[in-house]
């Protein structure tokens, strides 16, 4: 029963049953799994009375297809089910509990009104395969969102199908491929900066391209000369974020765009950092041809512990005919009195095909539209302004306590480094992160971007107040101070204390893989 010899497992033997409580509010006890709570014969489900004739299974499924016995899942009461998952929720940090300055992830407040929108039965209970006559509201919603996203990005048309940023990237690369093929040749290389997010090179591979990495210059931006050196007519395009993953605006973006376009390449915009520039500057105006957006970042749709997201892809006019289909579209008014459906589906002429089972993560898209409608153009611009203000305030405040590798005005996030701290005290970026957990904040992103040693990537977002920033900065400073004090390294290495579990042994997890309850040794 214990995960391994020597390991101390706090569960008393009775945990295999319906133990009510693993010390809720205490946070220092283990929660049994559903499987340990299970007792044969217990039941939570209740199903509708249908009156349908109750044929036996044997008459319904031929013997060779029948399962010998029902799948053994877990058998718990509704009461224990509720207690179990409620207790699990108490072992989970979230935006709703406190500041979550996870760089590159834009963990802003997720407005509750968007939850209410997503719960509307008129949206939530619609079958995706229903005829368009039954889904006019949804079609209008999608068209309206597409138009808003095109406006925000400065593009001509968009697909809402991709379910997350990485899906958007791959979709964008396939659009790139389709475009070049239509021009006669697919080309073979895609350029990405060394600071890029890991999904970019992974998507490049899946798009059938080779990744060519260009270095950042000493200011943290794309080294234009190095880029030019890589450009030739085998380059399909370049993938960039702007601001980049160092939180810095690529000031030479127009030169970059010109250079890439000159060799016939396309510019792909990774929209993960769009929050920084909403309503201030648009990817389309910078020269990008393809843009994905992370609605779960910029448009505040909740992350759900790792998803769902939504990664629409917007494109310049020349790429629109290649977009995935079917797409929701406004229909030309068929009859003058407005009767008949006003929205329908259309597959673009040279569509690369579907990239989702249905129409994308629709309820996420509905939330995003609600967010756009609440803000309007001005509100979105203010989002960017205050996100950037917050990041710069924090950078200025922490400058001196931590290294600031690229010490100039940043956009929505700033990348710090614990390199000096590590050299002088032995306390690493990871330790700083764990100490922050003890302080009641979520940790920033660590060890990314790869180009910064001991990186701590802090993105406060616009929904955090000055007082929160002050408390966060205080915590950062306290951590550095205590690291330097006697015993500081041990203190940090032992962190976090007080969290539901202490520092987790990641190496062991990978070495002795236990991917399911049944795989426990």
């Amino acid at each position: 029963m214990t995960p391994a010899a020597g390991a101390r497992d706090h569960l008393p033997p009775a945990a295999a049953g319906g133990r009510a409580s693993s010390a809720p509010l205490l946070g220092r006890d283990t929660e049994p799994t559903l499987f340990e709570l299970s007792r044969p014969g217990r039941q939570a489900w209740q199903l509708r009375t249908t009156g349908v004739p109750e044929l036996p299974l044997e008459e319904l499924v031929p013997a060779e297809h029948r399962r010998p016995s029902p799948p053994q899942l877990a058998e718990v009461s509704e009461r224990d089910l509720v207690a179990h998952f409620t207790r699990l929720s108490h072992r989970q940090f979230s935006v709703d509990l406190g500041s979550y300055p996870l760089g590159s992830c834009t963990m802003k407040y997720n407005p509750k009104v968007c939850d209410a929108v997503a719960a509307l039965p008129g949206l939530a209970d619609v079958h995706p395969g229903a005829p368009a006559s039954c889904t006019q509201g949804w079609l209008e919603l999608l068209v309206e969102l597409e138009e808003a996203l095109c406006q925000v990005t400065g593009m001509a048309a968009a697909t809402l199908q991709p379910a997350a940023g990485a899906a958007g990237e791959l979709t964008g690369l396939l659009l790139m491929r389709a475009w070049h093929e239509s021009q006669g040749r697919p080309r073979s290389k895609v350029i990405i900066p060394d600071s890029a997010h890991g999904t970019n090179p992974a998507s490049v591979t899946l798009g059938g391209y080779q990744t060519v990495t260009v270095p950042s210059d000493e200011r943290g931006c794309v080294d234009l000369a190095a880029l030019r050196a890589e450009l030739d007519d085998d380059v399909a395009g370049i993938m960039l974020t702007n601001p980049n993953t160092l939180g810095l605006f690529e000031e030479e973006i127009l030169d970059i765009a010109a250079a890439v376009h000159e060799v016939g390449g396309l510019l792909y915009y990774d929209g993960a950092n769009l929050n920084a520039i909403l309503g201030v500057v648009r990817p389309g105006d910078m020269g990008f041809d393809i843009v994905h957006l992370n609605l779960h970042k910029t448009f505040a749709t909740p992350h759900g512990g790792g998803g769902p997201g939504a990664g629409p892809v917007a494109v310049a006019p020349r790429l629109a005919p290649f977009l995935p289909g079917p797409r929701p579209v406004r229909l030309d008014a068929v009859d003058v009195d407005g009767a008949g459906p006003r929205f329908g589906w259309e597959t673009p002429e040279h569509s690369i095909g579907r990239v989702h089972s249905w129409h994308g993560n629709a309820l996420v898209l509905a939330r995003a539209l609600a967010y756009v409608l609440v803000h309007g153009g001005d509100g979105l611009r203010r989002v960017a302004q205050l996100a950037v203000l917050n990041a710069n305030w924090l950078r200025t405040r922490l400058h001196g306590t931590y290294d600031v590798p690229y010490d100039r005005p940043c956009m929505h996030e700033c990348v710090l480094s614990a390199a000096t701290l590590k050299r002088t005290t032995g306390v690493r970026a990871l330790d700083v992160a764990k100490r922050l957990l003890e302080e009641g904040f979520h940790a920033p992103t660590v060890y990314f971007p790869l180009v910064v040693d001991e990186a701590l990537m802090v993105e406060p977002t616009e929904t955090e107040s000055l007082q929160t920033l002050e408390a966060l900065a205080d915590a950062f400073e306290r951590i550095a101070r205590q690291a330097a004090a006697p015993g500081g390294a041990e203190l940090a290495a032992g962190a976090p204390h007080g969290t539901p579990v202490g520092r987790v042994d990641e190496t062991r997890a990978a070495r002795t893989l236990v991917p399911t309850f049944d795989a426990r040794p």
Partner: protein
Amino acid sequence: MADYTPHTEEEIAAMLGVLGLDGLDDLFAVVPAALRLAGGLDLAPGLPEPDVMVRMGGLAAANRACGPDLVCFAGGGAYDHEVPPVTRALASRSEFVTSYTPYQPEVAQGVLQAVFEFQTLLARLSGVPVANASLYDGAAAVVEAVNLGAAASGRQGVLVSRGLNPSWRDVLGTFAAGTGHELEDVGLEDGVTAWGTATQPEPGVVVVAYPNYLGCLEDLGAVRRLCDRTGALMVVAFDPVCAGILRSPGEWGADVVVGEGQVFGMPLSFGGPYLGLFACGAAHVRRLPGRLVGETVDAEGRRAYVTTLRAREQDIRREKATSNVCTNQTLMAVTAAVQMGWLGTSGMAEIALRSARGARYCRSALLAVPGVEPLSTAPVVREFALRLPLSASLVVERLAEEGFLAGIPLDGAHGTDERGLIVAVTERRTRDEIDAFASAFEKAVR
């Protein structure tokens, strides 16, 4: 204009002062002036939340939701199964909803343990020992399965049964443009795949659905033999509800099992967010796409969970990663864990059994309608295919007016023309609803 920023004007001024700036626009001094949007975005001015609720409510009202006014007999990959209040309540706990990917396991045990439980439940259901933390949807799971299979077999050839959901097949085709997989569709005969008609001698992957898109039960034993003969990996797109009473893909010998998990507690949602299910044999764990949660211990030896084998992921191996998936559908995996916990062993079998009973009853009633014919004689579970005396789309439109979502019209790919329709019946359909549907059907096909 409305937003959710807390800043007062005084605070903004003070913060700008710290930065030595005069105004918010100065924050963007690095942006070339020519690029800066002078007039702002051309979007309608912001609306207060209650106005937005009115607007969104209006859009919602312009749809016809499934329910008593539009009784759902449509499936095709999205099913109207029971979603109890308890699942809604637990899955909407804001700790689950508003957290990020569990990068800091010490404060993410809630999501991690729930996903660990999900993985276990899915492994038990599918009959193979490893399951990941979710993919986008059924289609994405098939794509990843083919990627895994091609990598494992070292071959690009893929046999795809025509019984696979055509949308998923479409997505597979889209992504094959990048990966270069050679997809060969293998047609159906009397509702099941005619593997003998395949031409690729050494496929790397074979993809089959169980039950397939027409609702029919494929002979997975034959598929296993085909794979054994050719060295291909066997990918089964299973229906996780029907799995409550069907032999598991793992028992049939599947190497990779994929599917759509919407049926476990997610509303129809106009198609998303849904839940891509992915499970496989232990041999393939290092090729597993997406995230995997594993059990381990903390510094004091207490049981703990963490995302593991991260070396596969794109934030470590970048272009050499086994997939590009980062954000997945974790909340849906948590939802499915809750729902499967609610169903438990007996409930899982029960919804499958009840659906099968409903489908049998409904199929008989519809086949009694003059002019309606079965599309195949193969055994079915909760969905079945018919050939109608007139266009299926037309019948669907007519029945929508009578208060029924009659099914999903088939395209030409399944041995039928535009008169093919698939009809799904879940455990939620009552005898009265089915009877009323059948009589409306009779009128609609006249």
